[in-house]
């Protein structure tokens, strides 16, 4: 579904991506894991054709993607970013309908689809009339997801979708995403720095550090046979120490 081959990208003297390769098989959920500055968001934007790679290539559904050649992605890829990336002047409904209107979908069909999606994320009719500034962080994130799904794309790219939320809402939404991904049967590429999110949602993982792939595999692979000490270090950093676990 997505194939990244030896992609490199520099911003001046900074190496953002260094010979990165990965494959995302149809129907799987792949997580790009790493701390901030590891190059995971850049990789996502290269895959979307928003940023040109210096070398290497990206194939989505078998077709190469570059900033000049990304038309075939439209309608095939849903994109969700931190805080939802909503247009503040459009209502929830307006934001969700936007990509479908741009594709010239018939209004009747579109209304049905919007209602379906609202039900999926647990919104009522009144919510569709609200503006992004009137929503909580979690609600905005749901709108971002609805908008990404409105054209029913086979591929879903999520860039730290829950990054800006407080811990309780975040945990709730992680569970909700887990449930949704199970039902939707999409190919998903998720960018996060959160190990818990990775374990809960991801089937395969690419761990990035300073633009370089450290290790690829399942969580079990990473945990049991770490390629470098850094892998263990990274996974442990977000786990509460054993003496505290007793309290939870």
């Amino acid at each position: 579904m997505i194939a990244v081959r030896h992609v490199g990208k520099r911003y001046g003297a900074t190496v953002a991506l260094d010979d990165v390769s990965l494959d995302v098989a149809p129907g799987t959920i792949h997580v790009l894991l790493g701390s901030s500055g590891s190059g995971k968001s850049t990789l996502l934007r290269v895959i979307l054709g928003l940023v040109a790679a210096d070398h290497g290539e990206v194939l989505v559904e078998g077709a190469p993607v570059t900033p000049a050649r990304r038309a075939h992605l439209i309608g095939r890829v849903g994109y969700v970013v931190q805080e939802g990336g909503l247009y503040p002047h459009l209502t929830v409904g307006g934001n969700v309908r936007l990509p479908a209107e741009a594709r010239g979908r018939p209004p009747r069909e579109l209304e049905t689809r919007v209602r379906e999606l609202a039900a999926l994320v647990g919104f009522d009719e009144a919510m569709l009339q609200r503006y992004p500034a009137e929503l909580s962080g979690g609600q905005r994130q749901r709108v971002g997801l609805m908008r990404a799904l409105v054209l029913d794309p086979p591929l879903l790219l999520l860039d730290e979708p829950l990054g800006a939320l407080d811990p309780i809402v975040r945990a709730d939404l992680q569970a909700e995403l887990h449930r949704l991904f199970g039902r939707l049967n999409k190919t998903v590429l998720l960018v996060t720095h959160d190990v818990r999110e990775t374990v809960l949602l991801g089937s395969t993982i690419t761990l990035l550090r300073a633009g370089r792939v450290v290790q690829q595999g399942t969580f079990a692979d990473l945990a049991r046979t770490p390629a470098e000490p850094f892998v263990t270090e990274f996974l442990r950093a977000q786990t509460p120490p054993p003496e505290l676990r007793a309290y939870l």
Partner: protein
Amino acid sequence: MRRLALALLVLGVTIAPALADDVVRVGSKSFTESYVLAEIAAQAIESAGGPRVERRVGLGGTGIAYRAVAHGSVDFYPEYTGTISRAILKDAGIESVAAIRQGLRPLGLTISDPLGFENTYALAVRADLSARHGITRISDLVAHPELRGAFTSGFLERDDGWPGLRRHYGLALASVRTIEHALAYQALTSGSVDVIDVFSTDGRLTQPGIVVLRDDRRFFPDYAAVLLARTDFVTTHPHAWAALTHALVGRIDGPAMIRLNALADLQRRSARQVAAWFLGREVTDAEERARLARELGTLTLEHLGLVVAALSLAVLVGLPLGILAARSPVAGQAELMAVGVLQTIPALALLCFMIPLLGIGTVPALVALFLYALLPIVRGTYTGLATLDRQLLEIADVLGVEGWRRLARLELPLASVSVLAGIKTAAIWTVGTATLAAFIGGGGYGTLIVRGLALDDARTILAGAVPAALMALLFHLLFELIDRWLVPHGLRLVTARPR
């Protein structure tokens, strides 16, 4: 976007209707005597049952008034032989009426016979000073270099003014300052200056306490009053021209003109009242007030028309230019610079540049105001679009929102606060700048301001300035409403509640 288009439509382009039918256009410069003579001429044609008369009076100085008649924007205006030979024919040696006519012929212009009086420059001093030092002639000033002079800027610069006079008489004064003509008499009588330049027919010369010095060594040339007219007007309107000649030529001597000027300047009669009095009729104060009220109504419409038309054009052109500037960095910078340079030209100068191209009146004023309103609109649009959230633009790329839809649905609404701020600034500037349109016969409230300045009449100035200020205020309020209407609700929520 649909709302914006609708708003533009509502503003509408109300370009003044083209002039039709037979009409005589009378011009004047912006000082009392010129207003009075033009009004006498206008009433003479009207009472002779001639064609409709349009008054395009208060056209600034010689430069504007001459261009107006040469371009055909007015048919004639009162002028002086000395000014014609020096400022227009550029040859001080051409003095006689016949020689001037010959010089004007290739320009398609001619002059009437002299009206009967001369208006030359002269120097005046206080009567007590004159008595104390025995100063009655200009040459008497040579012995008094301690005196302080205050001259109008025209007199200070013209070679037939102070520079020439000083050389001719060998004069030196302790200090020489620039002063507005209307304020010079007050400065003289209050004792803050000792010598001023005057026109020999000033109404204020009837006041006591002022002595005009004799030009004993014959420096100042003759400035016989005449009508400077287009030759084609004289040939196509023989009756009107005959009526003018009959009413004016040889009818006004020096003392008569001083009296007419005094009526206007000192007794605060309007040019219309003075002209009617001269022609043996009467216009009562009540009639005059009613006419002024009607005039204010007309001027309001003219002013509003200028502002709305100039602003609408500026929005129609400035918005696309701003979008273009935001799209291409190189062309954008060049464009912003070009529009910025336009802004550095003083508004009055910009208006004057329009005369050789478009003559005088509404159209050149409109073009100048339009050019002036461009910068804030282009800049507001450019800034709004250039500072949009990059992530939101990338998302539009991913969602496949492109072309017009992207501009209309996303970019312009997101930039609307900045775009509207630019338009609002332009609107308020234009209301103010439009008062200058009167200098080139463009009408509007400035007509009263120019007239009031010329007549040193604060009430007339205020009658123009106060409504202009009110109109600016109204535009401000109007745009507050337009803001509420055009800035999307969701965007206002964000600006009201910054995260």
